[in-house]
């Protein structure tokens, strides 16, 4: 009760005072004008968001207190803004080490209890915020959430992360419980990942045990990532793994993951390679070897086979590289690479990626005070934070205050990928890449084909069982979330090989989508070529024929296809847009990751 009163009194004092900065605060407010605007009458409610975000990103403790009080008032903000404000406030604590002045006990109510259970998103945001503030009062709630078998996976993850953020001995003992063999593997993985930030040795022991108990179906990526992001984490995990016995499949999967994020830590790579039954990392080839392999690439390599290898999921090439604008954006776009790069340059880039790195792909390594080590390409930096793009293409924000050391890094291109390749496969892959952009079948494509496809991950029966009517298209396709879709990429020729999407050789119904951005209205012809039966929707207009005209209007448009993929060999699909001679239409097909 006393705490509550004090908090209320502070709010009243602030409100009377108006602008926080004139209230004798120790650090002067950098957002005085914003506070005036926020607390004055001129700001329409629907524009509060940006103002609150800016206050959170630059304000001092008193400024944040004003926002905080709005957060904990039931009707202080709209529910959406409330959630966002909590995220921004979390960010202020992480990046700038600023938290609201005064008592913050009101937040604890949102962490547990009926109100919390009724609004999971708010609950998670509250846990994140309170644990970032190291509010030990929420420990019991977090412990019970983390250990309760009924807790949903996402909430458990947040609870575990909260325990790690608070970092007390209680947190640690809870996590040590959660790595126990009796618990489900996903829980153990989450717990081991969390533990890595508190007790690396114990975490590695647990993590190695988890991997030994895992099967190829379990996804250990996040747990391994937690170790890779720790100073010495990869080596300690490797040492523990040496004491365990992993299945070859788990080892392979883990190995692929570490390569896919541009890492090839020797000890970890060796122990996993051994378990996977593949050769250890070879040293980078000598120039003579490169010359020899290059000669073989030219005489024996097959670009068509190479393209298939390039597209292989286990190699992750397209996770980072795009061709014809379709694919990842982490590494260089490769459509034209063969046009300027000779074969041995291509080979060196695959076998010894650190030999020469183009200026915009030079990485930096950031060692943080808390033992984390992050690597990526710097996008921009200012006084309080550095944004980097990591090997997953994700933008990671690093608080400047947390940086212990900054070093020049290596290429994000994984070294050791070639372990998954036979020598012949390497020749084919290098051949394909060195043909890209040269005149011929792999020249930079001029036709407007859909190259970056979206594939609906779990199409509902309303879409698969029969040709859906418009309402179902509206509901399940146009009304879907971006996260409901995976990406797939066409070959250089524009053909999308459907067997890669079909999964097995069994028939399947796929819902696929491409996107067009129109700048000038006019007619365009859509040409659908497929070995399989296809129905097409241009936005909401349905088409059965394989060639049809559409009247494009400026803006973005969706081309959705329902493809009944048979069990045949090599089912294919290609969709191209053409502009008739008399058309004034101008548009581009959208690519990207």
């Amino acid at each position, binding site marked *: 009760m006393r705490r509550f009163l004090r908090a209320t009194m502070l709010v009243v004092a602030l409100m009377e005072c108006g602008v926080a900065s004139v209230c004798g605060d120790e650090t002067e407010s950098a957002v005085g004008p914003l506070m005036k605007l926020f607390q004055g009458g001129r700001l*329409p409610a629907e524009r509060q968001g940006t103002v609150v975000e800016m206050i959170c990103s630059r304000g001092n403790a008193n400024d944040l207190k004003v926002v905080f009080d709005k957060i904990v008032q039931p009707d202080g903000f709209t529910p959406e803004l409330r959630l966002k404000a909590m995220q921004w406030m979390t960010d202020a604590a992480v990046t700038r080490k600023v938290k609201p002045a005064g008592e913050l006990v009101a937040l604890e109510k949102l962490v547990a209890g009926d109100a919390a259970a009724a609004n999971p998103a708010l609950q998670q945001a509250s846990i994140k915020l309170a644990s970032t503030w190291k509010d030990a009062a929420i420990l019991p709630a977090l412990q019970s959430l983390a250990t309760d078998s009924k807790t949903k996976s996402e909430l458990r993850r947040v609870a575990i992360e909260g325990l790690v953020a608070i970092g007390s001995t209680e947190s640690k003992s809870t996590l040590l419980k959660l790595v126990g063999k009796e618990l489900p593997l996903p829980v153990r993985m989450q717990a081991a990942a969390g533990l890595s930030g508190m007790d690396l040795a114990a975490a590695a022991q647990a993590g190695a045990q988890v991997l030994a108990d895992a099967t190829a179906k379990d996804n250990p990526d996040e747990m391994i990532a937690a170790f890779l992001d720790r100073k010495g984490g990869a080596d300690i995990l490797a040492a523990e793994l040496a004491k365990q016995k992993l299945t070859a499949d788990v080892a392979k999967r883990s190995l692929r993951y570490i390569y896919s994020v541009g890492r090839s830590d020797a000890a970890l790579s060796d122990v996993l390679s051994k378990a996977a039954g593949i050769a250890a990392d070879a040293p980078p080839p000598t120039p003579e070897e490169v010359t020899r392999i290059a000669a073989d690439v030219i005489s024996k390599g097959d670009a068509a086979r190479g393209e298939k290898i390039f597209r292989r999921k286990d190699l992750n090439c397209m996770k980072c590289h795009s061709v014809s604008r379709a694919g990842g954006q982490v590494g260089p776009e490769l459509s034209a690479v063969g046009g300027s790069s000779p074969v041995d340059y*291509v080979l060196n880039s695959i076998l010894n990626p650190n030999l020469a790195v183009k200026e915009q792909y030079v990485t930096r390594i950031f060692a943080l005070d808390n033992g984390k080590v992050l690597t990526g390409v710097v996008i921009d930096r200012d006084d309080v934070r550095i944004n980097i793009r990591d090997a997953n293409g994700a933008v990671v924000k690093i608080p400047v205050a947390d940086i212990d050391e900054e070093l020049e890094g290596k290429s994000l291109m994984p070294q050791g990928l070639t372990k998954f390749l036979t020598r012949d496969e390497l020749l084919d892959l290098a051949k394909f890449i060195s043909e890209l952009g040269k005149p011929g079948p792999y020249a930079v494509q001029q036709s407007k084909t859909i190259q970056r496809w979206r594939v609906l991950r779990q199409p509902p029966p309303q879409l698969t069982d029969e040709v859906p009517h418009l309402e179902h298209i509206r509901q399940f396709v146009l009304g879907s979330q971006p996260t409901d879709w995976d990406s797939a990429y066409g070959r250089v020729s524009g053909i999308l090989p459907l067997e890669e999407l079909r999964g097995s050789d069994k028939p399947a119904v796929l819902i696929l989508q491409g996107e067009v951005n129109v*700048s000038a209205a006019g007619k365009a012809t859509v040409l659908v070529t497929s070995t399989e039966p296809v129905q097409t929707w241009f936005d909401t207009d349905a088409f059965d024929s394989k060639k049809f005209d559409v009247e494009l209007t400026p803006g973005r448009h969706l081309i959705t296809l329902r493809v009944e993929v048979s069990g045949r060999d090599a089912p294919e699909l290609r969709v191209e847009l053409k502009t008739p001679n008399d058309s004034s239409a101008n548009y581009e097909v959208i690519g990207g990751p």
Partner: protein
Amino acid sequence: MKIRPLLIAFLLAAASASAGAQDLELKKGDHICIIGNTLAERMQHDGSLEARLYSRFADYDLVFRNLGYSGDEIDGYKNGNHRMRSMSFGSQDEWLSGNAPCPQPNKLSPRDQGKVRENRFELTNTKADVVFAFYGYNESTAGNDGLPAFRKNVEEFVQHVLSQKYNGKSAPRLVLFSPTAHEFLDTPNLPSKAEVDASNARIKAYTEVLAEVAKAKQVQFVDLFTPTLEAFGKGAPNTINGIHLNPNGESLVASIAERGLFPTGLVTKRDAAALERIRSAVQDKNFYWYMRYRVTDGFSTYGDRAFLKFSEGPGGYGDGLSNYSVAQRELDVLDTLTANRDKVVWDAAQGKTAKADDSNLPEFIPVITNKPGPLEGGKHLFLSGEESISKMTVHKNMKVELFADEKMFPELVKPVQMAFDTKGRLWVACWRTYPHWKPTQKMDDRLLILEDTNGDGKADKCTTFAGDIHNPTGFEFWNGGVLVAQGPDLLFLKDTNGDDKYDVKERIVHGFDTADTHHTINSFVLDPGGSIYMQEGTFHHSQIESPYGAPRRVANGAVFRYEPRTQKADVYVSFGFANPHGHIFDGWGRDVVWDGTGSQPYHAVLFSGDIDYPHKHASPPQVYKQRTRPCSGTEVLSSSHFPEEFRGNILVNNVIGFQGILQYKPQDKDSSLTAVEVDPIVFSSDPNFRPGDTEVGPDGAIYFTDWQNPIIGHMQHNLRDPSRDHDHGRVYRVRYEGRDLLKPVAIAGQPIDKLLDLLKHPDNRTRHLARIELSGRPSTDVIPAAKKWVAALDTGDANYEHHVLEALWLHQSHNVVDADLLKKVLKSPEPKARAAATRVLGSWKDRVADPLELLRAAVNDESGAVRLQGVWALSFFNGADAAKAAEVVVESLIHPQDEYLKHQLNETNKTLDRRAKK
């Protein structure tokens, strides 16, 4: 230019020696190193001071090495922010002692062994016995607040230098020189009398500190300030901008300096012609020294890319020669060439004429290509300019024609940038020495004028306007002449006698880094308000001195803005570019800058708000995402020759994979703009085809250059790979079939009224040329005419608002503020005009009443584009006004937001915050 008034030699002969002063002691064979800022740097090009000392000590065999560098400050030897250099340039002590190891010896290959020196400065002949230090002007811009730090820095500097043995034997004899006075040049286009007086008061205070410390530490001090303050204003100008000496001033300061160095000694009468012969020999020696000390492509000569090694024979990287051994050997050659010319100077000092004996030059290291061609001897196959057309695919209804190639004009090679002049002639900057000049070869990069005199669509006349320039990575016309990049300098060339060859050549701005020559200031573009923009890439560290205040510094990516009329050079964009190439202004003055390496376009307003060094702007949203890279140049297709639907399209050159000109249609998007790709103009399957620059010609056709080179990468082949082409270059034009070409509009020599009416022309390039022509006319004629022209405009004209904006830009270009005209455009019913006027307001904020109130209106404008520009303009407020600007800028939040406005507000707030914290 080389005529030297006789009397200068005796000017100060009568001045009395100050009491107790001592002469500088020089010994036979002394090495004298000059360090300091632009005052020092410019001395090597003039040579007056050196000539006097060589003459005075004619049999001493003195060795001068000038290590001056634009923007340096006295604490630079220990503070990298005050002596910015690209990677591994060498520290001040390494240079003074002539001793520096190979920066990354472990990266050398077996083939490099035995080819490189342990000490890469072994032949520089620096090893200073005597150090002349010219510091203080840049420091003085900090005013009284900076004095304590300056005193400390001078003390520490003196102590540091005196504790070194640069010659390996003894502490150097150090002379501190004060800055020269700030000269008041009576023009409205340079700092006012009051500003110059304030500047001189500051310089005086800093001079006193130098004198006091020198006295306390017992080192010699030469006061250049007091005598120059006395002398300035009494005759012809002594500086180009108030602070940097012209030949007149160099001569004056040399005599003052000599007097200051030898206060008790006699000043003998000198034969001016003899002194001039020495100076001429000094200039020749210093030419080679400058090429050595400031070698361009430094990043590949000693920086990180020096240690790339290439295969010898077909391939890429390998274990063959590195750039390092090849480029360092060239420095050995330059050092030897310089040393050979020391002897010529000594002879000249003794009245003898001698020619340099260069029989002792080290051998160059031959490079074997890693990309041989299919022909005998690894030669590459080149199609002729005409044949190459058969490999091109052209947009429907368009046609490509050859305008000029190396077969027609052998001097047309390696075209970098081109531009049409007001006479309708095509100027092309040719870079035969690319990637940079190789010593002993001819330095014959050129600026050519191509003309089609008989109107058959082909050039039939080629004039070399300049045939002795170096790395001309960009140029633009201005004030009857032309500004040309010659990194690290910006040159002004002008023909005054009408023979189409320059006879005026001045270095007008210094300090643009050249670490990677294709990152050096390029793609020059003139905005409608009379400023020139120049792009520079990463690795570079530039420092530019200014008569308006502190030096402008920037590292690793920038766009510079230079107002030729006022000589203001500023960092327009500080952003982590890889290598920006391409910058356009649309009809409303909106500009887009491309990071060439990744071909990423950015709406420039989003990263050109004011930002204080060393901060850099955060990454703004891109205009569009391009499918290919890299971009070499850009243009707006604004031509009445093409059907209207093409008007305003953006042309983007691309040189790898897709080798051609892409076309994008821009559209407004929220408060900014986007663009979508439409059919390309042209592309080619000739592997050598590399369209470099594109511009709409006076006939309305699209002209473009072809760099024509089998090799495009700087990084993938040795700098001196013999497969780099030095002999080809083309210009093509693209016309629209079935439509007549335009009849070129008369511009050169037209009366001002006619030129003003051309500002109504729908084609951007025609208006652009009219503006250039007007830039060369007296402002006192242009501005009254412009006011009359505006008043007489038909308000019912559909383009009335644009015409008034043109008049406002003309005022800006002539540096004449008209607040009423500005306010009129700020209230234009056309939002794009209001946004453009808000940009002008940003530049005029110190010269109009209540700028913050005008900007308050802008950030509350109903148009997002105007608000965006208003938020931009508020970033330029400083001092107490920064807090007021911060109050105003948040009002933009009352209105609808988008990603651009949010980004812009964050950027402006960051700058204002930092200033508040100061």
